[in-house]
């Protein structure tokens, strides 16, 4: 019992690290929609800054801590927000995932590079090197006095670092709770989480709120980073690694609840200790003895939780998957040969260089360079697997490295000989080794099988959960299966020695070699020769690129794209998303497997470390930098990975020249910075650098077309006005402009290239109710959106109390006194009634008025708004308006879906608003209510107001025409 207690208490204290991490991750996700893989990298950056201040410059730990956490961390947060987060929020799902992976790769490298290389070379400062210090075994201190204080609680020993972590975790949990529950900014954060679009309409600046949340998380991450330095000793991979460990707590919280994430961290800490202490007694022997299994059990737990949570989240995600629009292909207008030509030229030049076709010295690659090109081509093959799974399938799979390793291991196994059945030709069961082709085929098959198995596990997960799930699986496989000696062959791995591709009696290979390479050849493929490796690389890359090209255009490819665009729609077309995903996964795994076998060939051995999960992340960032939808991106990416160091050495040394540049660019920290930044660039260009080709030309073309459209619309208007002989400035279709609170003047608006409103003008006086009627699709909701600022008009003006607010954001207009109650009720279902009111009402007096007006709300003060009945919800959305009458009140179908009694209450409330002086614009289906309420009625048809006038003049015929869509009289 005592042992259990000791383990538990100790686990609770150290679990606090996971708690802080997990809470920060969930907070960021909840307030920005981005899962920040780089959370640990941020913690490292702040900890590193603290290290420079405290250990480097000798500043006392208290001011160092304050400067790091309260100054540096928020500044870093603001910088990252501007550069990355803000843009990522609007990017497609996979870009959001890979963008923060770029942070993991770039940020630690960047800050170390700045301090150790840049400062030294450019500024001449000799700053303390953390990894240097670490490598010598020196202790890197955290906070507090140098001398460790040790406390004994019974049998448990804690030092002041551990206690500090626990206290800090508890404090941050408390602060988070207080901020979120008790402050206005916290309320704003939760509002943004609940319904982002509505938040703006309620006066909340979502961008500013996300920024605030982001800065808060950064400070928490920074604090955690500094505190754990005594344990992690500024090893950057440990800081990023703790994020992966904390996934357990994150998964437990379902990425929603911060308190549960916090508790989950503590649970994880306890679980780890209990496993360490008791697993030998509880688990059967063969399980307990499996190398690496025990420390990996939490990973299994994470996987399980991800599945459970994904099942719950699925319902909500179903809708959002539909907005995966394909990127604009800027080369769309060009003929096929023009698109292919640059690539053909490039490939030929590369081949000429590698195979030494031309006689000039500078045009011939030496062995070393050829070796690099060969490696680049093979890595390009691996990147092709990314093109398939992420570029075509839209799924971010972080387990591609696993398939590479599996492929390599399989190939090595086959090449050891005596494995294949005798009846296979070239099976090599005699003295010669098996033909390399068999090794490649087996590699593809085994990898595809494993890919299919993994896809069965993860295919029902949404985008983010799939990424997390594959990452966890990759780690798990790496630390258990691949560590098992018979599979992984420990540090030596599998050898791919002198394979042969010669097919007796089939002179194809020999001829190919003879044909391509100049000079006398041996008549076969010699894998030791780098030129032959390049040839092989070209062949396989070309083969797979061709396969992908055909896939794109085949029915299967179209089915896959359909699934990616909208799973729901695909299902109705008879396509099984699950089957498509599995096919895609298996195919991509097969390509990665062959890539792994080739990788093993050029590196002589393949170990589990050849493509560990972390390297796979770096590969992903490189691949997406260039463009993951096209094989060309994979080729450039592969070459970049293999040759970047050499290229920079050359650029820095020979092209730009000078020791400074060379020193800067040849540091091993430099290339990770570039690759990471490349991934971050995704935020702006989700389709990589290649997609930018032709971008400018296309941009100019689009701009020209847009201007033409606007000009045409305006000319049209001018023409019409001249026809009808009305001075254009004074025309208002509905209502009078004089003294009007809300004026929409000659609005032309639409969505994308579809124009919905073709010159709409109306005005609403204070105390006037203008009703907008019309059939479905007439443009009524669009008018509301334009008035509220949710949609920017192509041309025309919006005036609020005489002021031009056309370019004001929704939250600004809300603060200026325009309240829109949208179609689906204007409430936040995840907040209580009281909190809903607090969003708009600040003074106690106003709250009281709201409760007085709607006593039912007072009864339900602390209930979640989502649980109220339809009528009560509508009362809730109207209550703030009655307590603090807005200048303009716009209601889009306020009685839609309400029972008659409830509808009556709503109508009453609107009448009251009118009496309180608000200018009311009403869009309503139920003509009867409208006729009672409205002062002015306007009919809309196909984006124009076709009739408007006082209520009394509106008659049944006109009404019928408006609703049935018959042409107006």
């Amino acid at each position, binding site marked *: 019992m005592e042992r259990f207690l*000791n*383990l538990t208490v*100790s686990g609770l204290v*150290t679990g606090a*690290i996971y708690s802080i991490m997990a809470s920060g991750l969930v907070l960021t996700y909840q307030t920005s929609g981005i899962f920040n893989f780089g959370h640990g990298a941020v913690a490292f950056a702040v900890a590193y800054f603290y290290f420079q201040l405290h250990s480097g410059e000798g500043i006392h730990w208290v001011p160092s801590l304050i400067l790091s956490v309260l100054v540096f961390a928020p500044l870093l947060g603001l910088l990252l927000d501007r550069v990355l987060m803000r843009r990522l929020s609007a990017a497609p799902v996979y870009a959001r995932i890979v963008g923060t992976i770029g942070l993991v790769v770039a940020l630690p490298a960047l800050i170390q590079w700045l301090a150790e290389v840049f400062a030294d070379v450019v500024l001449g400062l000799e700053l303390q*090197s953390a990894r240097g*210090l*670490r*490598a*010598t*075994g*020196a*202790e890197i201190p955290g906070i507090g006095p140098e001398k460790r204080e*040790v406390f004994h609680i019974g049998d448990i*020993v804690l*030092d002041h670092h551990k206690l500090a972590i626990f206290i800090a975790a508890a404090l941050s949990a408390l602060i988070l709770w207080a901020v979120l529950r008790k402050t206005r900014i916290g309320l704003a954060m939760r509002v943004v989480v609940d319904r982002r679009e509505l938040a703006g309409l309620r006066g909340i600046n979502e961008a500013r709120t996300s920024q605030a949340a982001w800065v808060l998380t950064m400070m928490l991450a920074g604090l955690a980073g500094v505190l754990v330095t005594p*344990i*992690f*000793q500024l090893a950057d991979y*440990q800081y990023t*690694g703790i994020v*992966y460990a904390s996934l357990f707590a994150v998964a437990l919280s379902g990425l929603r609840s911060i308190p549960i994430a916090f508790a989950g961290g503590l649970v994880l800490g306890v679980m*780890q*200790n209990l496993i*360490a*202490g008791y697993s030998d007694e509880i688990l059967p022997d063969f399980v307990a003895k499996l*190398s*690496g*299994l025990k*420390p990996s059990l939490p990973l299994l737990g994470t996987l399980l939780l991800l599945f459970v949570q994904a099942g719950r989240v699925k319902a909500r995600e179903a809708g959002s998957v539909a907005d995966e629009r394909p990127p604009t292909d800027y080369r769309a207008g060009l003929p096929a040969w023009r698109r292919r030509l640059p690539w053909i030229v490039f490939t030929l*030049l*590369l081949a000429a260089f590698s195979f030494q076709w031309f006689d000039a*010295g*500078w*045009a011939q*690659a030496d062995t*070393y*360079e050829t*070796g690099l090109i060969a490696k680049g081509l093979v890595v390009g093959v691996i990147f092709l697997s990314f093109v398939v799974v992420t570029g075509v399938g839209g799924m971010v799979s972080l387990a591609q490295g696993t398939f590479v390793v599996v492929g390599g291991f399989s190939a090595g196994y086959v090449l050891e000989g005596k494995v294949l059945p005798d009846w296979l030709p070239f099976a090599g069961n005699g003295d010669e080794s098996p033909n390399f082709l068999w090794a490649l085929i087996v590699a593809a098959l085994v990898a595809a099988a494993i890919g299919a198995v993994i896809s069965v596990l993860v295919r029902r997960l949404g985008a983010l959960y799939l990424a997390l799930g594959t990452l966890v699986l990759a780690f798990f496989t790496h*630390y258990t299966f691949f560590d*098992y000696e018979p599979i992984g062959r*420990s*540090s*030596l*791995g599998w050898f791919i020695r002198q394979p042969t591709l010669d097919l007796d009696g089939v002179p194809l290979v020999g001829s190919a070699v003879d044909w391509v390479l100049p000079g006398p050849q041996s008549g076969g493929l010699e894998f030791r020769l780098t030129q032959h490796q390049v040839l092989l690389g070209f062949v396989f890359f070309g083969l797979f690129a061709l396969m992908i090209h055909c896939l794109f255009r085949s029915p299967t490819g179209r089915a896959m794209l359909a699934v990616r665009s909208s799973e729901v729609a695909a299902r109705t077309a008879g396509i099984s998303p699950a089957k498509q995903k599995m096919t895609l996964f298996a195919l991509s795994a097969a390509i990665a497997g062959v890539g792994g076998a080739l990788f093993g060939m050029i*590196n*002589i*051995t393949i170990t589990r470390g*050849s493509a560990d999960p972390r390297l796979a992340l770096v590969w992903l960032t490189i691949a997406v930098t260039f463009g993951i939808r096209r094989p060309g991106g994979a080729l450039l990416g592969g070459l970049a990975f293999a040759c970047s160091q050499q*290229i920079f*050495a*050359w650029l820095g040394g*020979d*092209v730009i020249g000078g020791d400074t540049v060379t020193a800067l660019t040849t540091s*091993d920290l430099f290339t990770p910075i570039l690759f990471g930044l490349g991934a971050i*660039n995704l935020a702006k*260009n989700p389709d990589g*650098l290649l997609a930018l080709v032709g*971008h400018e030309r296309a*941009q100019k073309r689009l701009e020209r077309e847009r201007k033409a459209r606007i000009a045409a619309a305006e000319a049209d208007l001018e023409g019409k006005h001249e026809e009808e002989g009305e001075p254009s400035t004074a025309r208002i279709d509905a209502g009078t402009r004089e003294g009007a609170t809300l004026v929409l003047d000659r609005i032309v608006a639409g969505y994308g290239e579809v124009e919905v409103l073709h010159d709409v003008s109306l005005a609403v006086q204070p105390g006037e109710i203008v009703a907008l009627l019309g059939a479905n699709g007439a443009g009524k909701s669009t008018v509301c959106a334009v008035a509220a600022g949710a949609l920017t008009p192509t041309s025309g003006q919006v005036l609020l109390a005489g002021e031009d607010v056309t370019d004001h954001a929704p939250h600004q207009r809300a603060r200026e006194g325009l309240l829109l109650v949208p179609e689906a009720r204007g409430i936040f279902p995840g907040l209580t009634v009281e909190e809903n009111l607090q969003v708009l009402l600040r003074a106690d007096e106003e709250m009281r008025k709201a409760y007085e007006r709607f006593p039912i709300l007072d009864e339900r003060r602390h209930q979640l708004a989502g649980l109220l009945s339809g009528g009560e919800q509508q009362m809730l959305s109207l209550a703030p308006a009655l307590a603090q009458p807005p200048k303009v009140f716009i209601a889009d179908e306020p009685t839609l879906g309400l029972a008659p009694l409830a509808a009556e209450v709503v109508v009453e409330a609107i009448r009251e608003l009118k009496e309180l002086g608000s200018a009311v614009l009403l869009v309503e289906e139920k003509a009867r209510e409208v006729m009672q309420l409205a002062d002015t009625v306007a009919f809309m048809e196909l984006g124009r107001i076709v009739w408007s006038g006082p209520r009394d003049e509106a008659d049944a015929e006109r009404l019928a025409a408006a609703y049935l869509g018959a042409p107006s009289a």
Partner: protein
Amino acid sequence: MKRRKLVTVIAVTAAMGLALGVGGVANARVKSQEVRGITDDEVLVGGLGPSYPFREFGGETGVLARFEVENQNGGVNGRELTYVGWGDDQNSADTNLAEARRLVEQEGVAALVPVLSPNYLSAAEYAEQQHVPAFGWGISRGFCETTYAFGFSGCLTPPPPVKVASNTWGSLIDEAFKSEGDADGADGKTAAVISEDNDSGRAGKVVVVATAEAVGMEIVYDESSLPPPDPAPVTDFSPYVTELMTANDGEPPDVIFLVISQDNLQGGFQVALNDAGFDGIATNAVLYSPLATGLVTGGSVLTQFATPEAAADVPAVQEFLDAVEAVAPGEVINQPTIAGYVAADMFIQALEAAGKNPTPEKIQKAAAKMTYGIDGFVGPTKYPKGFKAGTPCGQLVASDGTEWTVQVPFQCFSNIKIPSLKKIKY
């Protein structure tokens, strides 16, 4: 707009630059000479391994120090020894190969000196094919699987199943007890062996258990229970510390062998042991370093050579310190410094034995049958036996929290057979 264009231009240029292969890279020092790396006046070598810690913490200084001494005396057979640079393998076997290729094909080195890396694997195969001898620390399989790699302590990581191992560690502990006045030495003492829960940990543990038993210790704890520091570091050592402290029937054992990685030690495993009140001998084979005294307070570290603390008793160590002072005054001496120095020393011996007209092949032939050592400092390592086994010599240093002292001076023992072991149990 402009920025995007610039980025595109750079990307495309970089790619084209590759294709056109303009100059710089191709113009590197590829001498199409008869003998790679050896002319009448000089011999070229290059270093290989992870920059951190091996290059940054003395690897280069060591080799430069030794070469400087030799060059001051006219070099080897009139040839100056030139160290061209280091290939940083960034802790990856694949990068190790790439860097080896660069050193051989671009820089044209005759030999790889020093090779200080746990990742010298496929590069060793490559080196063997290309006839590039390597001299360094035998902590990679490359030193045990090929005939072109020579370790100053022999082959320290033989492939499984491990049948023969050195009994240095156990014997040093035995000597440690005796030096404190305990005539029995390690005989009858209780020992715990803990390693990390991965393949290399399990393999290492087997050897250590054998060496402890060979000097009569009773093994009361033998587990690969500590999680490796990947992907996430161990944050709480207390469960393992508790197990160790109660391993001997509820009491702590006399000796704890920590077969764990530097990460876990730096994370504070020894410190946690001290906190729990352990006062026996806690020993590891990793963390000797001038700045690590605090982390290993009370611990004893096995090193494969004598350390600067032994300078007073071993003249060769003093010579080493003087040589380092000459090229890098004031630089702190770490294990890589020593390793670089002795690797260079071994290379020089082989070079001399290769005669007046050496070639890489001749150097290899000479090294493959020589015995290398410096009395009281390192070795003797006998080749060709060194291809298969490590040299059973070592020193024990202890830290009291602020400084290191030699607990048991450098000496040699023997190799033992690991009897009951056909394969490592899983």
